């Protein structure tokens, strides 16, 4: 992956309409960002569409990237995750509609989920980072609900279903998990 400084430079050139610089941004970051979209969507075709739309947005909004405010990769990840979440919701709505039509006996279609375990991803991500200590301080249920929401783009009710826990508890876990994470990170400086 390209270093932050050259990514920043290429993004500001892209804002001026420099296509070569924009292509460099794509080459340097697309594999990582495609991985992120794929984790959330778990479908290659949708992840490809989401990545494509996200990068078209990046091209048109490169001028709004503020180097002083955030790392280029953080900015790109946010754009791709948002786009992937949009696609996930659209796909779920679509699936719900077609289930209404086709699935009269009420049985649900199980799709094999071959994605790595989100808890594993969480621990890998925090390896060697100060966020690790903060994650470890969270209750296991808080940690797991954050990981499911972040990596798989699950909603509160989907997290509840997966963890076989009441919706109200999951909402509280997510909220407290985020609060504690923030406090801990702030304390760690």
């Amino acid at each position: 992956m390209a270093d932050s400084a050259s990514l920043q430079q290429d993004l500001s050139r892209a804002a001026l309409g420099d296509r070569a610089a924009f292509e460099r941004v794509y080459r340097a970051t697309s594999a990582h960002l495609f991985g992120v979209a794929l984790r959330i969507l778990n479908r290659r075709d949708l992840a490809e569409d989401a990545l494509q739309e996200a990068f078209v947005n990046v091209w048109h909004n490169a001028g709004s990237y503020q180097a002083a405010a955030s790392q280029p990769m953080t900015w790109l990840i946010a754009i791709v995750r948002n786009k992937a979440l949009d696609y996930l919701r659209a796909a779920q709505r679509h699936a719900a509609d077609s289930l209404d039509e086709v699935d009269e006996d009420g049985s649900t279609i199980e799709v094999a989920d071959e994605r790595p375990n989100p808890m594993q991803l969480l621990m890998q991500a925090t390896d060697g980072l100060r966020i690790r200590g903060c994650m470890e301080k969270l209750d296991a249920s808080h940690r797991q609900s954050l990981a499911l929401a972040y990596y798989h783009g699950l909603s509160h009710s989907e997290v509840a279903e997966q963890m076989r826990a009441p919706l109200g508890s999951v909402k509280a876990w997510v909220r407290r998990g985020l609060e504690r994470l923030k406090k801990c990170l702030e304390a760690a400086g």
Partner: protein
Amino acid sequence: MNYDQPELLDKLAAEYVLGTLRGRARRRFEQVLSTHQAAQSAVQAWEDRLGRLASSVAPVKPPDRVWAAIDAKLRPTPRASAKKRAGWLDWLKPVAGFAFGAVLTVGLVLNDPSRFVSVDEVAQSKQALPQSYVGLLVNEAGEPTLLASSTRQGRRLTVKFLRPVDAGGKVLQLWALPKEGAPFPVGVVTPAKPPASTTLELRDTSEKLFSNVPRLAVSFEDAPAAPGTLPSGSFVLAGHCVKLW
């Protein structure tokens, strides 16, 4: 909902970034985000905090068709766009951002012409500046950089440097961006140290060249652009071209 409560805002921002803020609540928050500075900062802070979690996701190389599709959406290839006018609109998009600085400074020129033209010249013309085409090109930061001017029937364009331009050994190629059709090369601007001016010879009168040209732009090229060719890369300077009469 009261979005001015920092704590509430922070909670919404956190769940927005995590992705658990859904449905109408998410749409509403996105609207708030577009105008609310504090909401933007809160979201940015959460993107920083949670963004590092993405680092453990294994990279997967997307197939080549993804880039091909992106590339096709940005703008058509130069050859195709020379035939298709709409293509140039996309191409000019980055230039639109320059507009504000240009309008502002053209206003300055009109209100106080002595800033750019010698006092004698103004005195001679008594009330008005000679009929001229004037272009003000700004850089990516919107800073006025070049002032191009030429009398209406003149065949010489004066380019005043308001700010240094570092072309890195390349030539400063000036382009005219007509209302319709592809950009055409005007000439190469000889670099000068601000506030000096340089001139370039035009192949026709300003009137003939610029009467349908609302914008000018500069790209860096390895060699002067031949007639009929297109910029090799992006514009580094751009701005409006206006009639001073």
